[in-house]
């Protein structure tokens, strides 16, 4: 009976004081929504980074000229570049290597008919597709003869294909990059935008010899990508490559490396620490909004109860027992917290959905992330609604009545 009456009274009170009720709910709502949106976003971003990196293959290593950490001004330029023979040496002398792709990149404007697009032109061997996990959507990759002779052929990334050809099939067509004409032999399946906002499909790939002879005009290789046969071997392969390169570059004992070898584990660790910081930052912001929301709830509850001390006095004078008053305030706090919390969850999930959609991040929802802010807000609402009400309910009715 007490509970039923209290529920009845609660809904009456909420209807009679829509502003006060709305403000109380708003505090809870904002706290819950902010935390859910922020943390879902952070987790989604981390998950996206992880999947991007594993999309590159667990077994990838790369070698670039220049000492580790010396990529400031002047650093890499002092180091002699690699050439194709370095890549061949790795393939020949390091055991456990599945594929080696020496690459060189430049930028250029690709033109077909009236369409043009500034894009990246990568020169590499057919191993590149295997090492970087590229799949052919239509057409084919380079054959042996084309690679040996430096034939004027290319394979397009989806973005370039779309910009130049729209919906037409480009295989067999001829495009122009600078003053070089290239026949399109294949198109790659799309990979989409990378974690760092880069369009991975915005490039053209040509055989290494083609790039060296017709575009860059040197025998330099900017980076060598290596794919290990198994992930377990990548550390060993990494040190083998290091020793091989030191030997080929005639570095003496005690001299520092003038090149850098990295494997995926290092890169994942590096990126992982960045996304970790990002997630922690978002969690900190979320925690602050939850705290602010909690203070809001606390305020409105304290004000509501002290504003209603007189009301409590009236109720006590006309026959309410202390527990009638308490039940009413407790149920009121629970109802307000629950409604605010549920709306906050919906809003938080909705916000996370919209933002992750816009940023092309997966939506990572964790029940804990929903439960914790909900329970925190509800607890704050109930505690700060309950204790002042209990204090008021224990007053002499006349003191409560005299409260202004």
């Amino acid at each position: 009976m007490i509970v039923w009456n209290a529920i009845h009274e609660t809904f009456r009170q909420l209807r009679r004081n829509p502003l006060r009720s709305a403000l109380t709910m708003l505090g809870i709502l904002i706290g819950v929504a902010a935390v859910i949106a922020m943390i879902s976003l952070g987790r989604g971003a981390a998950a996206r980074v992880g999947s991007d990196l594993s999309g590159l293959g667990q077994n990838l290593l790369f070698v670039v000229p220049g000492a580790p950490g010396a990529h400031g001004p002047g650093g890499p330029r002092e180091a002699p570049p690699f050439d194709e023979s370095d890549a061949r040496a790795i393939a020949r002398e390091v055991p456990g290597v599945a594929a080696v792709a020496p690459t060189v990149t430049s930028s250029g404007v690709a033109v077909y008919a009236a369409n043009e697009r500034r894009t990246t032109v990568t020169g590499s061997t057919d191993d590149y597709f295997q090492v970087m996990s590229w799949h052919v959507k239509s057409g084919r990759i380079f054959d042996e003869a084309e690679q040996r002779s430096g034939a004027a052929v290319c394979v397009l990334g989806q973005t370039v294909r779309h910009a130049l050809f729209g919906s037409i099939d480009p295989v067999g067509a001829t495009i122009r990059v600078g003053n070089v004409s290239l026949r399109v032999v294949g198109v790659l399946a799309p990979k989409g935008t990378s974690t760092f906002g880069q369009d991975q499909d915005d490039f053209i790939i040509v055989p290494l010899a083609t790039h060296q002879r017709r575009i860059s005009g040197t025998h330099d290789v900017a980076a060598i990508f290596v794919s290990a046969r198994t992930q377990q071997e990548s550390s060993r392969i990494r040190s083998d490559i290091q020793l091989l390169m030191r030997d080929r570059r005639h570095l003496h004992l005690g001299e520092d490396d003038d090149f850098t070898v990295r494997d995926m584990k290092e890169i994942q660790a590096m990126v992982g620490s960045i996304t970790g910081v990002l997630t922690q930052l978002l969690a900190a912001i979320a925690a602050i909004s939850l705290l602010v929301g909690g203070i809001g709830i606390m305020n409105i509850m304290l004000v509501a109860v002290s504003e209603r001390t007189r009301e409590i006095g009236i109720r006590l004078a006309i026959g309410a027992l202390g527990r009638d008053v308490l039940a009413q305030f407790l149920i009121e706090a629970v109802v307000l917290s629950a409604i605010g919390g549920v709306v906050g969850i919906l809003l938080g999930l909705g916000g996370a959905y919209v933002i992750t959609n816009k940023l092309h991040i997966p939506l990572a929802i964790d029940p804990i992330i929903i439960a914790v802010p909900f329970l925190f807000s509800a607890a704050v609402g109930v505690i700060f609604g309950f204790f002042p009400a209990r204090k008021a309910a224990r007053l002499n009715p006349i003191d409560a009545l005299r409260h202004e």
Partner: protein
Amino acid sequence: MLMSLEHIWKLYGEGESEIAALQDLDLQVDSGELVALMGPSGSGKSTCLNILGCLDVPTRGEYRFLGHPTSKLDNDQRARLRRRFLGFVFQGFNLLPRTSALENVELPLMYRGVRARQRRERAMTALATVGLAGREHSTSAQLSGGQQQRVAIARALVTDPAVLLADEPTGNLDTARAREIMDILATLNRDHGITIVMVTHEADMALYAKRVVRFLDGRIVEDVQQKPIGAAA
């Protein structure tokens, strides 16, 4: 004896600043009386009423209700005593804001566990008794002061109390409205046998009482029976 105050002291503050609102007060009220407590501000009349109504507790002394001592009762037991026997009317009306007259009058019945339908019937009857039939759904803001006080009286009498305690029931009203309220109270006393104790500082209103008790500095200085004007009407 219905209500009996024995050697009641009520002290406020401590040490040097201690003030005695009531000093060794004795007062008996019997069933069917209509008592007016009079006196200047701070004379202790309201404190006396609050103690009679179990809204406040004395510092020392014993208050017996129907012969039972109340000094050992806890908050809930006092609340149950109020529920069963007492009704209150205040100077400031003390209606719940944004709440209809009917809901205000139903509220005491709700706390007594009366079923919704019966609650409504009894509240309608009580409102009709104080002449407010037809205004059941008006909120306090839509009612005049006199009408609000009638709602408060209806709320007090809907539970059929043995005693109605009124603290300056006409204090916020003009003379005509005040007379109407006093007529209602006198009628309740005469026709329903409800014992009424009211605090007032207006001599005009005290004329409706059968007995007038005068307070000064926390003591009773005069206690006289009189022929009330309400009974003559």
